């Protein structure tokens, strides 16, 4: 039996739920039977209790709201810059050539390597977290956009000119943006996950949010709280990803 295309959706859901249940049961059993000390790895049954505690104290909501604001602002800033510059370099050979060496120089620098500068320039603040997140998002979206624009069939530009769209602006609106949309959206979707990683990394050095709360809990060996925030991030990422897929499918309904 091959790995895909054989199971019905119902059966896939059944197997998926079965796998997840087995995973949780094994995890619970390993803690209950003393195979794993609960101080190093909490049992799944401890998590709802820890979550309720965090929720009632108001810390969960404050951390999530703070992280979400970093996430959304960083994502918006990085994605806007990435799409904007990607559109320009994708269509203009001269701009692409002018920036080529700068890109080669800066691209290999990991987002976390900017943390010292983020602290020096912005302090331990929301701005520094946004800066780190935006850098991580920028490169993904920039390359996705530039690649998508460069891959546009030349014939479409000729079509536009044949029908009187001779200016660069009119060709951007009628051809470049819609034709590059699938590639741009694919880049944006990848950046949704990348941005969450950057959120935690940015908050680990003290900016209030989920990452900071995780570090505080870890330092007190409250691993159940660490797992609460890990699950929170997974749930938030899943939520954003599903919402994005809905928008993406709607925007790209023309794809065969």
């Amino acid at each position, binding site marked *: 039996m091959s790995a895909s295309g054989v199971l019905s959706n119902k059966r896939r859901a059944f197997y998926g739920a079965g796998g997840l249940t087995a995973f949780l049961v094994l995890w619970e059993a390993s803690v209950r039977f003393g195979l794993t000390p609960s101080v190093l790895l909490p049992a799944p049954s401890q998590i709802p209790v820890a979550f309720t505690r965090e929720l009632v104290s108001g810390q969960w909501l404050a951390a999530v709201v703070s992280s979400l604001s970093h996430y959304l602002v960083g994502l918006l800033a990085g994605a806007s810059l990435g799409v904007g510059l990607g559109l320009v370099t994708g269509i203009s050979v001269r701009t692409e050539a002018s920036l080529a060496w700068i890109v080669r120089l800066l691209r290999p620098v990991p987002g976390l390597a900017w943390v010292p500068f983020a602290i020096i320039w912005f302090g331990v603040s929301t701005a520094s977290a946004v800066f780190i997140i935006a850098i991580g998002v920028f490169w993904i979206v920039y390359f996705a956009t530039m690649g998508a624009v460069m891959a546009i069939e030349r014939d479409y530009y000729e079509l536009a000119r*044949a029908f009187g769209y001779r200016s660069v602006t009119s060709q951007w609106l009628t051809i470049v943006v*819609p034709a590059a949309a699938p590639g741009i959206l694919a880049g944006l979707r990848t950046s949704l996950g990348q941005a969450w990683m950057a959120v935690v990394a940015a908050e680990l050095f003290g900016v209030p949010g989920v990452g900071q709360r995780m570090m505080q809990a870890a330092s007190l060996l409250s691993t159940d709280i660490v797992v609460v925030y890990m699950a929170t991030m997974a749930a938030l990422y899943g939520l954003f990803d599903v919402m994005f897929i809905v928008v993406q499918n709607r925007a790209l309904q*023309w794809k*065969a």
Partner: protein
Amino acid sequence: MESVIDIRNLALSFGEGAHKRTVLSDLSLSVNQGEILAVVGSSGIGKSTLLRVIAGLIKAERGDVLVRSARQSDAPVGFVFQDPRLLPWRRVLSNVLFGLERLDIPPTLQLQLARRALALVGLADYEDRFPHQLSGGQKQRVSLARALAIKPDILLMDEPFSALDLFTRHTLQDEVLDLRRKADVTIVFVTHDIDEAVYIGDRVIALTGEAGGIALDRVIDKNKGNDRDNPDLAQQVALIAAALNHEVSSDQRSILNP
């Protein structure tokens, strides 16, 4: 009859230095209003390039190209490419609107013109479909509707039916002739198929790679009708083929040398 396209001593080459390749050399040509000019010639001889020069998509190296708009239209020239070249992210109606959206006319009139053009090519019921939901013939019809919607004085068609099956090709050829009767449009129709050129064209020119550019310029006599089985048309096909040193079928040879 007044000419709407006047080309004088047109020259064009591609590449530079040792790689320079002359495509059109000292070509002069006039196309009269309402005429269907069919352009034949072997691959790479410059047929498509000639259309692109007329459309202003390629600049001539030397010579003059004059395109007159009889109706002072905003969009004097419509173009139908070899491939339908529909924009996949637009629905059929939106594709037909593509050329109209640029013009300074109210949106309601744009819609009216687009729907009329779609009806003209028999696709009124397909306006909400995306291009990938259409057959090859339907896509080419939409491409034709897109060019006709702007009500061009001149329609440039670059081997538009070459990728279609014989039945669809014959149907669309008849539609082009029908359109000319209804829309009073001048058509320059590029094809490598001499049968198609003689059937569609009022006049056929054959391009050559030599200076002067035109090996043959022949008005097609359709006084005895434009039936596909008309032996007069078959004879004209044979004569043009012979002039172009094409392989002539035995039937055509018997017509040439009875």
